[in-house]
């Protein structure tokens, strides 16, 4: 198939950036979206042009590194899919595809389609953990956890930190990301001791990073490759409110 790609090119963080149009032909339906980019880059190199920089690593939908805004959608048209799992079957011959980086104040563009998501790391460092040193914790089976809680906690923990929630949200809100971590630990007995402080610190850091506010539109849930649910956002709100009341 033949495609027209409009790709955002930006030399570095300070550069203004602009769209550049590329024609690519001979693309197979079996290729993944990123493999289509590999083909394009290979051709750019042959022409002695700089290849397009984009983040990617595991290419099996779990590392959370890939991040492209394709035709107006985070990770492209398929739901519950990362860019690396998106395949060219999703597109038609002759189609024009517009590819942009994640856009948010909290995610500055580093180059082309690469953004800096270190804000997420700082939010986790603010409280997204259980303060237990390596050593001799009690036996793992000392604290039974109801299966339902464990499953719910796991569903929150399956967040891959890709940032699609922020990218798709009209407010660039990071609530789903923060909610996933707060929720995961709030549901487990291990997370109880620091439960209140965790919610307070992580929300404070989230606000400091310049993300927008949640207006419950649900775009984040719809675009999340792992289907992390909005109910975790409700839980974060509850945790935060309770923490403030108790404080």
């Amino acid at each position, binding site marked *: 198939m033949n495609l027209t790609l*409009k790709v955002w090119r930006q030399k570095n963080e300070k550069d203004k950036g602009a*769209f550049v149009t590329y024609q690519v032909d001979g693309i197979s339906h079996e290729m993944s979206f990123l493999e289509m980019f590999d083909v394009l880059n290979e051709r750019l190199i042959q022409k002695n042009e700089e290849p397009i920089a984009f983040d990617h690593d595991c290419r099996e939908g779990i590392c959370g590194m890939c991040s492209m*805004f394709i*035709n*107006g*959608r985070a990770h492209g048209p398929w739901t519950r899919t990362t860019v690396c799992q998106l395949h060219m079957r999703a597109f038609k011959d002759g189609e024009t595809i*517009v590819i*942009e980086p994640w*856009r*948010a*104040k*909290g995610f500055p*563009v580093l180059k082309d389609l690469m953004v800096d998501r270190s804000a997420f790391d700082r939010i986790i460092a603010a409280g997204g953990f259980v303060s237990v040193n390596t050593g001799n914790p009690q036996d793992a089976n000392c604290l039974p956890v109801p299966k339902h809680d464990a499953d*719910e906690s796991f569903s929150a923990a399956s967040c891959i930190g890709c940032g699609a929630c922020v990218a*798709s949200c*009209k*407010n*660039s*809100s990071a609530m789903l990301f923060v909610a996933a971590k707060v929720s995961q630990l709030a549901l487990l007995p291990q997370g109880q001791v620091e439960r209140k402080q965790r919610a307070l610190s992580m*929300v*404070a850091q*989230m*606000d400091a990073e*310049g*993300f*927008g*506010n*949640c*207006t*419950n*539109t*649900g*775009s984040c849930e*719809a*675009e999340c490759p792992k289907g992390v*649910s*909005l*109910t975790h*956002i*409700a*839980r*974060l*709100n*509850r*945790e*935060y*409110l*309770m923490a*403030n*009341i*108790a*404080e």
Partner: protein
Amino acid sequence: MNLEQFINSSLGRKTVMAATGLFLCVFLVEHLYGNLLLFFNDGGVAFVQYSHDAVHSIIIRSIEVFLFVAILLHIVQATYLTRQNNNARPVKYAVYKVGETSNWFSRNMGITGSLIFFFIVVHLWQFFLPYRITGEIGGEGQMNVAQAVKLAFQNGWYVSLYVVSVAILSFHLNHGFQSAFRSLGLNSRKHAQLLSLAGSFFAFIIVGVGFASFPILFYFGIAGSTI
């Protein structure tokens, strides 16, 4: 509780939005109750009495203060949050198909809210202010409140504005109601569906059908014949 920290946090502001929003919902129910008195076939006596009591009751008048504070807070916070949200994405997307992942009304509460505010101003100008200040409506004590309502609803333009505004309010509430519960953390996976249904019922049936029924029924002469 560190109130300053809470109020200035993103979630604190959302809590204020939610709490004031729900408070205003309660007011709507109360308002609807009063309006329903218009449907009594008593020549508007109950409604006139109700309006009179409302103006002269010290309790209602103090709640009124809260009401205006709530509206003010709701608007101020909304403006602040909207500005902050716009700043959170300095460079916009060239193509942004957010419509595929969320509902238009959920994303444009600011627009629907502003329209509702405009209607509130008109509405207050029409009924509330004159009555509140002079204790009379329609000038020179010729009409009681019920008659004033009936008169207003003879005007096709006003009826249309009223109905459209109520419709907008319904959509605003359809998102706002369940959203407020989520912002207050009163939502779980189990109840999400139920809450969303309850929200729609409240928005479209109670508020929507409820309020829109007055101008329509009055305009077509189905109600208010004894007034």
